[in-house]
């Protein structure tokens, strides 16, 4: 930031900020399209690239899988218990299960999984990319093909896997929290689950999870490739954009579900 000239007027400062904002978003979209093109081109799937991608996937997903699953199980159990006890005190037990599933599985868990992947995998990866670019190790198409694509794919994969696993765990915990550790309520639970997940809700849920994963995978990597140099500075702008996109996706999904 010190390298930039000091703006002379408010209008010029506003213009510079708007241009930076537009360029940053354009770079994210550009990276997304480039990664998509590279994924669709056979030259990106040679042995070394596949091995690099597999290593990145395993490195980004496996270490956080167990910890996040335990965290989600505890969170689900506590929230389910709170909702069920509160609903019982108001005589609304029949609505407790639906509320738990809607709040946990549809809204909280995908967002939590995306944020967890961003914090543990993609934001540090973007900062590594920024440091490497600062050192001038790899730039241009090589950086995208060799560094960005595996990280983006690994980020999307980790986000989707964590969301799927944590939703399954949350469903099991919600069942245990409402019915206890027995199979007596499985029929009714399955019916409620089927009533909640209408085709429209399911589509919104799938799209939301996909866009969450794309946001947490693309934005930090784009920040690392094109953003300002420096460890902490590289992550700040990308982090803000990523949170803004996650918020926007969440709002749009809520509008799709309930309006």
């Amino acid at each position, binding site marked *: 930031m010190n390298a930039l000239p000091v703006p002379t007027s408010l209008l010029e400062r506003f213009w510079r900020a708007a241009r930076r904002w537009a360029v940053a978003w354009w770079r994210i979209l550009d990276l997304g399209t480039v990664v998509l093109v590279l994924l669709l081109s056979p030259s990106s799937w040679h042995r070394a690239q596949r091995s690099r991608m597999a290593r*990145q996937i*395993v490195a980004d997903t496996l270490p956080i899988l167990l910890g996040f699953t335990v965290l989600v199980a505890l969170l689900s159990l506590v929230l389910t218990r709170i909702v069920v006890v509160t609903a019982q005190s108001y005589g609304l037990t029949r609505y407790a299960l639906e509320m738990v599933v809607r709040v946990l599985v549809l809204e909280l868990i995908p967002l939590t999984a995306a944020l967890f992947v961003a914090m543990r995998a993609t934001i540090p990866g973007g900062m590594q990319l920024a*440091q490497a670019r600062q*050192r001038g190790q*790899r730039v241009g198409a090589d950086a995208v093909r060799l560094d960005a694509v595996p990280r983006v794919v690994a980020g999307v994969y980790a986000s989707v896997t964590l969301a799927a696993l944590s939703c399954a765990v949350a469903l099991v915990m919600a069942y245990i929290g409402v019915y206890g550790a027995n199979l007596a309520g499985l029929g009714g639970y399955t*019916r409620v*689950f*089927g*009533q909640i997940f209408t085709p429209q809700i399911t589509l919104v849920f799938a799209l939301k999870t996909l866009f969450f994963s794309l946001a947490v995978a693309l934005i930090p990597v784009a920040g690392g490739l094109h953003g300002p140099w420096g460890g902490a500075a590289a992550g700040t702008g990308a982090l803000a954009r990523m949170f803004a996109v996650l918020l926007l996706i969440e709002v749009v999904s809520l509008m799709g579900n309930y309006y």
Partner: protein
Amino acid sequence: MVHEPPTDAPLPPVAHLRLKALALLLFTAALIVGSVLYLLYARGAFEATQRLVLVTDDSEGVSVGMDMTFSGFPIGRVRTIDLADDGSVHIAVDVARREAHWLRETSVFTLVRGLVGGTTIKAYSGVLSDPPLADGAERPVIRGDAGAEIPQILASARQLLDNLNLITAQGSELAAALTQVRTLAERLNGPGGAMAVLMGGDAQAKQIPALLEQATRLLSESRALMARLDAMGAKADRQLFGQGADAGLLPEVRASVAQVSGLLQEAHQTLTRVDAVLAEAQAVGRNAREATTDLGALRADVEASVRKVEGLLNDINRKWPFARDTELKLP
């Protein structure tokens, strides 16, 4: 973050990388496929169903996917809601085949919309021995809406409040009645009191004390009369039952009754003797009747003898020419 390794440094070697990556991919794929299959199962995609069409005039609150229950157990799901040509609503319900036996030809279906919670479709089967409901059957649904009664309740409440306003308004009947009550209370507290209220005026009320005085006098006279009647009763008692040395009339009456009883016994004995006399008289009479019978025979004999004597006299007279007296004297 400062101590992160440089990006060109090779990632740390992962043992069995290919196997782990494959297992991870398979795990994720299995998770997603399993979730999709469970969702399809929960939505009833693998369930054999039969169609039931419920016809109603209002589908408010009904949504695709909601349950139709029988005795509280869900047995079917709403699949489609269509508006028919005649303006009625056709609610298509998919009923699971394994639960379809609860629905009979005589089953009744209700669409109830409560104040709290969603709309519910319920099925009732009174006679489970009736023929089962056919696939694709159309049935009317009885609609009950607790919320629809609220306007009626509000209208009733408004009418009640209007009536209350009318009752409590200035110049209303209730106000007039309260005025009358106040007037009555004032008259009750007035000089005449309750008597004036009951008699209708002070003049009539003033007659009441005179009437009371007359009644008192009558009572005192009645008391004196009663005293005299008591004295008369005491005298009668004394004469009847006696007092002190005087035995009274009752012992004498008792003695007279004893004498009468003795007389009656004697009369009874006399009558008994009269009976014996009569029996003897009957025996005498019977003897007299027998004697009379014998007298008849005797008379016949006498008559025969007399006739013979007459004949004889006639013969004598014919033979005896001196005697002209032919009169005969019977013995």
